[in-house]
């Protein structure tokens, strides 16, 4: 059972993880930091939501994880987008565009 009330937020987090992985593969902390960076600190990604998201998306086949060495020679699991992941990012981006446009309009008219 997916946690329904947080569906929107969940989808947003997924989208941002996919977006952050669009350019290069990264490990968990790297992804969290990248999201903080691109949202200028608006989104603080906690490990409690990061890991379940990563594993779920790996299971969906959007990401693949491989073990590698970090810049300071630590073993870390690196995630990479798959083709399906890229497609998912595209649809998510479109969806988000529609939603934010709709919300913006709704707020403007009131």
């Amino acid at each position, binding site marked *: 059972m997916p946690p329904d009330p947080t569906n929107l937020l969940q989808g947003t987090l997924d989208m941002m993880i996919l977006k952050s992985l669009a350019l290069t593969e990264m490990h*968990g902390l790297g992804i969290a930091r990248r999201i903080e960076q691109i949202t200028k600190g608006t989104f603080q990604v*906690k490990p*409690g939501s990061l890991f379940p998201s990563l*594993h779920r998306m790996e*299971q969906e086949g959007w990401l693949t994880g491989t073990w590698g060495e970090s810049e300071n020679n630590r073993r*870390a699991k690196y995630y990479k987008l798959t083709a*399906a992941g890229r497609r998912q990012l595209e649809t998510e981006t479109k969806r988000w565009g529609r939603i934010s446009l709709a919300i913006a309009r709704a707020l403007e008219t009131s």
Partner: protein
Amino acid sequence: MRTLAHLTSLLRNLFRRKQSDQDLDEEVRSYVALLTEEKIAAGMSREQAGRQAKFELGGIERIKEQVRDIRAGARLDALIQDLRYAIRMLRKGPAFTVTAVLTLALGIGANTAIFTLLNGIMLRALPVRDPQQLVLLQWHARKAPAFDEYSSFNDCATSGPGDENPWGCSFSSPMFNTIHQQTSVFDGTLAFAGPLPLTVSGNGSASMASGEIVSGDYFNVLGVRAVLGRTIGPADDAVTAASVVVLRYGYWQEAFGGSPSAIGRTIRLNGVPFAIVGVADPGFISLTPGKTQDMWLTRSIFPRVGFREGWSRVEDAGNAWLAVVARLKPGISAAQAQAAVGLLFRNELGHGSTPLVDPTSDPSIILLPAQSGLTGERRGYEKSLRALMIAVCIILLATCANVAGLLLARSTTRRREIAVRLALGAPRMRVARQLLTESILLSVLGGLVGVLVAFWGVHAITVFVSSDSLQRFNFALTPDASVLTFTAAVSIVCGILFGLTPALAGTRIGLAPTLKENAAGDDNPSARTPGFSLSSALVVVQIALAVVILTGAGLLIRTLQNLKNINPGFDSRNILLFSLDPALTGYETAQIQNLYRELQSQFAALPGVISASYSSSALLAGDLSNGKITIEGQPDPQEPYDVDQLSIAPSFFDTMRIPIIAGRVFNASEAVGNSESATSPQLDAGKPWPPPIPAPLLVVINDAFVRRYFSKRSPLGMHLNRGDTTQSKTGTTDGKPRSRYWEIVGVVADAKYNELRREIRPTVYLPINGGGANFEVRTTVDPTLVIPAIGAILARTDANLPLSRIRTESQEISHDLFQERLIARLSSFFGLLALLLACVGVYGLLSYDVARRTREFGIRTALGADANAVLSLVIRRGVVLSVTGTIIGGASAVAGTRYLESLLYGVHAGDASTLAAVAALLTIVVLAACYIPARRATRVDPMIALRHE
């Protein structure tokens, strides 16, 4: 792609759980390490950075748990966990588990056993290749085609004489040939008829056997092989072909000891030599369910075996006697094929040299699936089986109610455990699912044990069924895949059925009061009420269901009793019966008459024998013949009277001890010279009527005849005219009945004819002349003791003359009542089972109740209530339950047993005395079940009960 990823991760989670767990652990740890390094880089001390990183992570285990939950295998994990837990819980309460599993095993086992019966008799696929492609041809017309002769052999349902839009499935040989050539819609067609009786000689002493007449393609089209030698092929079905025969596997075992040397041997059938060419596959007994024959011979050969006259005209277009089955060509629909053969049928019947059917009567062919169209012996069992199946379904419901009651009581004692789990944050559905898993596990266990119960049950039924010495039970009763599927489905549905209510009720509890209760006495009245009413309702349901089954069983037992108490009108004790058919061995009518008389006097002279006689068929043997008559001197009725007819030897009434009321019986000399043998068993409906002679014939009638047609007038000397008979349509010429005078010389008391259930109808007893006969020998000793002497007399007279159907009249009666006994016995067994379940239910509920109210009883006793007051307190509850259940059950029984009406005799559905007896039995037994817990309540020691607090 996505599903594949899903699947691989599911598999990985399942089989490499440990590894993926480690993987996750390492990943989280590396995250912490990276975070710590980041913080050190930002200027924290190593120690502080480590602490801060762990704090930000918020608990490694919690994260791992969250990740695990979202894994694909999470549900399966939960299921395995539930199962493990369920097994632990069932182990913890062995008494509960054993009771529940045994109860379920009885319920599911009874269902499986009866379903095995139903499957074996009604549903099992025909034992041939691709049976679903086979269709049975059935003709329909608004008016029956004017066939000269029409024979059917109980292969399929055929319309009765009065039915509008008649139908049937017998076709003439030329019609079959035409259909056989129609190869555009069928991959093959076959025809068969029989079985017909044959005498076998040339293999030990002469014996009787039965043979089925088949077309040459029979085995090829069915795809049945020979286990030895070969089957009959198309080349054998030619007028010039050699006489060959294929044996049934079982017959080969019995008659030839399974010896391979039987192949190629020559035996004589009705005196004609036949070569044995093969033995059919052991799995193939007969195409039509429940029928059997010992051998197969082809339709063009069999006229050689010298059957009765009628069979010489087997090639006539007006003689319909073959059942036709075809294999549909792949891709051809039944409707297409139906249209094609319908056209052939119309042409053949309507445009022959003598049209047999009026085109306006719209003759047509319907193709039935052979599986359901070939009813055979099934039809006789259908009603009983349906009643039994309903009975076992009710048993299953009662079982479910019983186990639901047990579970409910248990879930009440587990309320604290459940409350703790709910309080710790388990979702209610999760807990309900856990409880449901337990109940399904229980019912699956019950189902497994139930299969054993079913094996035993089927064995017991088979043993009982084969105790009927007069009829072989030709159905295979082994649990096959469909039976096991049925059991599995029943078990799971049952588990959900009885588990759902307790699961939902068990999780709907107020947390605070439950947790506050002390461990020992959870007699919180507010918490008790819902469980109380629900479990009471379950017990009431069980009692009501028991009443329904017991009432049904009671009615069936009364039926059996009524049938057993029927006075058949003759003395059925110490009578030996056996059949002879000298015509099969080549005797002429006049010779037969002499032979019979000679044998009769020899039999009567045997020591231990009082008298001997013979008749065209034995009484209560199921054979019946009837015909139409008019009475001379009475105004012609619109329809001739339909009366029963039996041909007898003069000594018949004396031997059977049927009293003569008026007049006399024709004597031996008066019976000679009349070739008027009016009767033949219905099986041989295809034989033609012997040519009549217009001389008056002396006959005897029964009392029912007098009462019905000669009110207060003496019938002696009156003349009867034969009308058309149902036996033969050749008896009429130019559509008018021929006149044949019968003169009544005597009246005898009423006696049952073909079966006990049938009312005694007006009957004419005619002198027997020729044909097959059944001998009756009345003895002073056990009738079976004279069998060797009779065999010896027969062997001395003519060694080629086989005896058949040797049995006693008592065996014949018990065969007549066989199904009634079977169903009465099974239903009373089920009735007792339901009663037992209801008792266990009541006992369990009250015991639990008493245990829970220990403190209350203690206080009552302490305040001065005496033992009787406490006793009545408990018993009153039992009485309320049983009265409510009996009333509901009685009402449902009155409505429900109406479906049994057609099985009953001398008693009606909703019979008041049966209901009263059932109610009384139930009340007594239920009260007995109440008494034990009630006694326990009176023994409560107030000091101990109160100190308990």
